[in-house]
């Protein structure tokens, strides 16, 4: 069905906007799949920690000792920083009338806040 799609000959802004919209969709679905996995692992880890009576100090100590958890939570943070602004973009459009470049600027700032704050937290755990 997609075999007949011709390659775009010239760059025009409408087509660029369409490609951006399509990529936002792809990124949001892909990040959702990553988040679904990460949330399950995260919840399982919390349940394990609670049931085994681990203190916060013990949890931090185990995270220090592992290469897995900092990488895992970094992936988690990146996926959340991609996913949340894309979802809020639709909310901003439909409920606030915020769209186009203004929406992109606000949501890019939000993505940076999520990414910076999240990675800072992961780094302080891993350090």
């Amino acid at each position: 069905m997609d075999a007949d799609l011709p390659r775009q000959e010239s760059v025009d802004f409408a087509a660029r906007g369409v490609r951006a919209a399509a990529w936002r969709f792809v990124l949001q679905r892909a990040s959702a799949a990553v988040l679904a996995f990460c949330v399950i692992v995260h919840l399982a880890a919390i349940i394990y920690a609670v049931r085994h009576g681990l203190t916060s100090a013990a949890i931090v100590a185990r995270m220090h000792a592992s290469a897995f958890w900092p990488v895992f939570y970094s992936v988690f943070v990146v996926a959340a920083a991609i996913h949340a602004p894309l979802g809020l973009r639709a909310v901003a459009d439909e409920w606030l009338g915020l769209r186009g470049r203004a929406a992109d600027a606000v949501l890019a700032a939000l993505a940076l806040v999520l990414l910076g704050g999240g990675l800072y937290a992961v780094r302080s755990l891993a350090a």
Partner: protein
Amino acid sequence: MSSGAEATFPVLIWRGKADGAFRRYEVPRRASQTVLDIVTHVQRHLDPSLAYRYACRVGMCGSCAMTVNGKARWTCRTHVDAVAGSGALEIAPLNHLPIVRDLVVDMAPFFDKWAAAQGEFRATATRRDAFARVEPASRARRAIDATIECIGCAVCYASCDVVGWRPDYLGPAALNRAWTLVNDVRDGAGGSRLRAVAGDAGCHACHTHQSCTERCPKHLAPTASIAGLKRLVAVAAVKGRL
């Protein structure tokens, strides 16, 4: 057809434009009565100035859709028994379209979006070519079977929350039509049509509420068509063909 001793029931019908109001009529209650019968009775016997639209009366033309007790329906095939449970009936014009007068809406924005979604067939063959051979059991042809019976009544469009929130959204009917043509092996506009429906106001605006699918009088599933377009657009974007 005498209405002398017949039992009547109250019917509220929208009169005027967007700033109009409901007016109450007492209409005879009869067996197997449709909502369109009610409106026709009012226009012919009670108030000839009432404006409404219909043509075929048998669920083919898609011109008689109205909002009946809060839900968009095809009035010619909606029995009063099925919708007026408490006895009262409220008939209004379709949502999301400009009211011309009374029960008549301007369908131009609805069909303009069919055009924006490139809803017209673009032939790749001429009259001198042989007939296209399309395998009825093929996946693409079966996808068309599921969508082709749309009568353009705009019930889905009037039922769609997203159209209410962002008026530039192409809407379920136009996207269903685009999906029909994308699956047509005889059509030559697949790439440009995908681009036409892939913007922010196209298939990605759909929230999958499925009001269109629930209300479609032909029992089509525009939500599934829109999901198909999303899938195809995503594949095209990843492969650099959009």
